[in-house]
């Protein structure tokens, strides 16, 4: 009891001291976190509108020293997870649809169809097993936080890419030497291509925003107007950035993104006109009071868009040989009206963006498909199109499930036009292992200027165990997208931000490292029809086997156990025997054996009885 009392008082004291410590921390940090909400609209080919929402929380806080005890704008639920599992960088995206680079250019943030997650863990770890354990814990926890199936991630579908998926934020080891930076022990990547993205994912995602979805730009995100799009992707991205130009300390950036591609023809009405009300079903009635910046941008680089309201400002910049021009609206000034802010944009019909044929195709794009020969052998083919006049160095990353065994020796890389074989600059391959590890392949190659390079690798179709087939096995098995990364020399169709910048408004005075514009394209994912057994087979087998046994058992039993004897066929004798037995019965004597053998010699009736018993 005494021990208990001391414990209690200690606890109270500890609590009170922590409380006072907290209050000082809170006052000290009250102004070190900022929230920015931004949305950009861009017309793309085929009467489509690309809208990209970005909700950014920046916090002058260090992940290495702080315990995330006090969160103001940063979502507490996520902070605890990041702290518990010692996450240095976290990227999640939940996507429906495929981004068509060839027609739509490059998105601001790339995402693979389905659920994609890649994580860099912190340096304080006890080796690979420790990180694997944390990876499992992290994905399970996130599955609860975001209503996703991340809990299906295990060693059988995670890989550690070597060349792709370098940290997007700062890393202290980057300076210390290439060895620490190049390690891939701390990175984990997994994709669930089958994942369905719906309202139940958007709901918890919205709850992480400081203003929830009641105020500000997030109030435009209504499930009904998000899931009717050609492409929608929600994301959450956490990383560390330089605090200042010296970069001796870090800050935290947490970005929640939504990418949507609307088809104006499907939405109805005029195909050359879009408005906020048409896209989202509502005007903008409010701004988020917690937001420092609350901006709407319209990409007017092509000078083909007429806006119904004069923008607050227009910014232009020359980025990577590319002219960009944004019309900017400050939501604080417009959204307070009772009618709701509605922006109407008319696309001039003479513009090239309306015609599907006359778009400027991007410098690099890819296409992936499978070829099948029956249900025995198949191949994965990736075509990389380089429209630039100079060669580009491209990294190709493939993460193939264990049930699609590929043959490394069949990897062929060749130019399509002249069939010339291309020698890769580097290759990394880890063969898969049944039920425990996927096939991992990374190839760095130089794609010659103005050429199409084809990579192909063969695989076999396999049978799974009976219980491993999902309930809808005939639907097919999904194989996630491959990732093709490259640094482009020009920024044509490129709107992403450099690593040192987090807000869209800073694109105008951002500097890119030596004019290299990094793209990390996700290819198409595909469905593979694995040979699927007939699941009613066991039932059929049982029925058939039982019938056969029943039919066979009776006669066999009779033949092996019963003795056949000749019986006298003369009617006289039979009659005599009957009379004798009757008389014997009357006088209490046992019947002679001959009488019993009479029924034994009729095997047909006994077969019938045996069969019905079974």
């Amino acid at each position, binding site marked *: 009891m005494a021990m208990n009392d001391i414990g209690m008082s*200690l606890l*109270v*004291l500890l*609590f*009170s*001291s*922590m*409380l006072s*410590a907290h209050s000082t921390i809170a006052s000290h940090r009250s102004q070190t976190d900022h929230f920015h909400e931004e949305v950009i609209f861009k017309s793309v080919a085929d009467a489509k509108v690309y809208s990209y929402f970005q909700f950014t929380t920046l916090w002058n806080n260090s992940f290495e*020293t702080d315990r995330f005890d006090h969160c103001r704008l940063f979502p507490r639920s996520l902070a605890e997870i990041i702290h518990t599992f010692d996450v240095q960088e976290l990227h999640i995206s939940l996507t*429906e649809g495929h981004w068509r680079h060839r027609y739509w250019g490059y998105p601001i943030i790339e995402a693979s169809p389905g659920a994609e997650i890649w994580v860099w863990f912190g340096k304080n770890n006890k080796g690979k097993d420790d990180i694997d354990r944390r990876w499992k*814990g992290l994905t*399970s926890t996130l*599955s*609860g936080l975001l*209503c996703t*199936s991340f*809990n*299906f991630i295990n060693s059988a579908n995670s890989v550690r890419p*070597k060349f792709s998926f*370098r940290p*997007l*934020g*700062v*890393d*202290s080891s*980057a*300076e210390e030497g*290439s060895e620490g*930076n190049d390690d891939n022990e701390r990175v984990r990547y997994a994709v669930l291509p*089958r994942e*369905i*993205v719906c*309202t*139940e994912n958007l*709901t918890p995602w919205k709850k992480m925003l400081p203003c929830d979805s009641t105020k500000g730009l997030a109030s435009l995100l209504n499930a*009904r107007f*998000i*899931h*009717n799009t050609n492409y929608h992707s929600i994301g959450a991205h956490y990383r560390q950035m*330089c605090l200042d130009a010296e*970069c*001796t*300390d*870090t800050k935290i950036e947490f970005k929640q993104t939504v990418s949507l591609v609307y088809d104006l023809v499907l939405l109805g009405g005029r195909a050359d006109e879009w408005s906020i009300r048409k896209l989202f079903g509502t005007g903008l009635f409010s701004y988020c009071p917690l937001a420092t910046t609350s901006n709407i941008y319209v990409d007017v680089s092509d000078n083909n868009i007429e806006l119904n309201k004069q923008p607050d400002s227009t910014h232009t910049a020359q980025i990577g040989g590319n002219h960009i021009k944004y019309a900017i609206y400050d939501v604080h000034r417009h959204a307070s009206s009772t009618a709701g802010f509605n922006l109407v944009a008319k696309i001039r019909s003479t513009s090239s963006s309306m015609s599907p044929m006359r778009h400027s195709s991007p410098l690099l794009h890819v296409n992936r498909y499978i070829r099948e020969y029956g249900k025995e052998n198949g191949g994965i083919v990736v075509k990389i199109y380089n429209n630039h006049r100079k060669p580009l*160095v491209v*990294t190709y990353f493939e993460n193939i499930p264990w049930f699609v065994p590929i043959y490394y020796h069949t990897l062929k890389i060749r130019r399509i036009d002249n069939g010339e074989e291309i020698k890769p*600059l*580097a290759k990394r391959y880890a063969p898969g292992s049944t039920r425990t590890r996927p096939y991992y392949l990374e190839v*760095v190659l130089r794609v010659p200027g103005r050429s199409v390079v084809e990579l192909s690798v063969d695989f076999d179709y396999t049978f799974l165990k009976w219980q491993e087939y*999902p*309930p*809808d096995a005939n639907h097919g098995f999904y194989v996630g997208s491959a990732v093709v*990364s490259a640094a482009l020399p020009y920024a044509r169709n490129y709107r992403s931000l450099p*690593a040192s910048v987090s807000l869209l408004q800073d694109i105008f005075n951002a500097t890119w*490292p030596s004019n*290299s514009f*990094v793209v*990390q394209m996700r290819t198409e994912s595909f469905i593979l029809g694995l040979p699927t057994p007939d*699941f009613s087979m066991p039932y059929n087998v049982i029925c058939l086997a039982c019938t056969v046994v029943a039919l066979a058992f009776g006669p066999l039993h009779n033949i092996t156990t019963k003795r056949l004897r000749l019986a006298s066929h003369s009617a006289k004798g039979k009659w005599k025997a009957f009379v004798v037995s009757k008389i014997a019965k009357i006088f209490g004597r046992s019947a002679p054996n001959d009488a019993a053998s009479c029924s034994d010699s009729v095997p047909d009736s006994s077969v019938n009885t045996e069969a019905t018993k079974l």
Partner: protein
Amino acid sequence: MLQSRHTNNWAVLVDTSRFWFNYRHVANVLSIYRSVKRLGIPDSQIILMIADDMACNPRNPRPATVFNNADQQLNVYGDDVEVDYRGYEVTVENFVRLLTSRLPPETPRSKQLLTDEGSNILIYLTGHGGDGFLKFQDSEEITSQELADALEQMWQKRKYHEIFFMIDTCQAASMYEKFYSPNILAMASSLVGEDSLSHHIDPAIGVYIIDRYTFYALRFLEKVQPDSALNMSSFLAVCPKQDCISTVGVRTDLFARDPAKVPITDFFGSIRPVELTFVPEEILQGTMPPELNFLIPAEEPCREKRKYSYVSQLPKITKD
């Protein structure tokens, strides 16, 4: 005023059917989800299991919605829905593990049934069933005996106070016949030997939109408010034979109270006990004795200046 002895409310709502033609089962489970949420059970205390995605299914002409009737009066899916188990996660194993709290250690809170001996639990199941079993995703079954044993295990682990068990499936009454644990009130959409029927078809989606029993249950529940004085016996009579066509089965012998005296909010609503204290907490008073100084977090030592930099996204290729 009736005094109920439970301290919290939970709901386990399960749709066990996959594939588009089973749209009605998702509409069923979401109808109950909508009602319990409206009547005050928070999402953290609702375990919603849906075996397939109907709202964002490519065949759904109205994305992100699930309606309970062809007139589209009520979007039971809503804008604020949290599905805890979905798709392939809805298995017999996971369902039994959830009920009996035998989940893997890393399972998040939202996927756990964190009930105690004061919990009133509403269990709602819908899907395709037969005499003594309920199918999960057309590939496995839970038998009535397994379900009864799981509930008994819950009782022995003191994981519930009372259970209201609802099931909408063919021959539904066979699922509760094997129950042998106390304090369970059970209700089924049809008796053994009867089919449970769907309500009407929606030509826009091409399939049946909801089942009769749940349709009338939702119509009844829509009129219930958190302060309603309606009792369970009125809910047990929610779907008379001329509406349901099947006979609604009820089992009350395990239930200690009279259903006519149990408010409907005992299972569909939520209790949130609020304790008012009038003595201010004074834990901040007093000074820390010096021998406990080690508890105060020390000033952070000056960290050595470290240089950070952004990482190059391009592969560094070294010749091995």
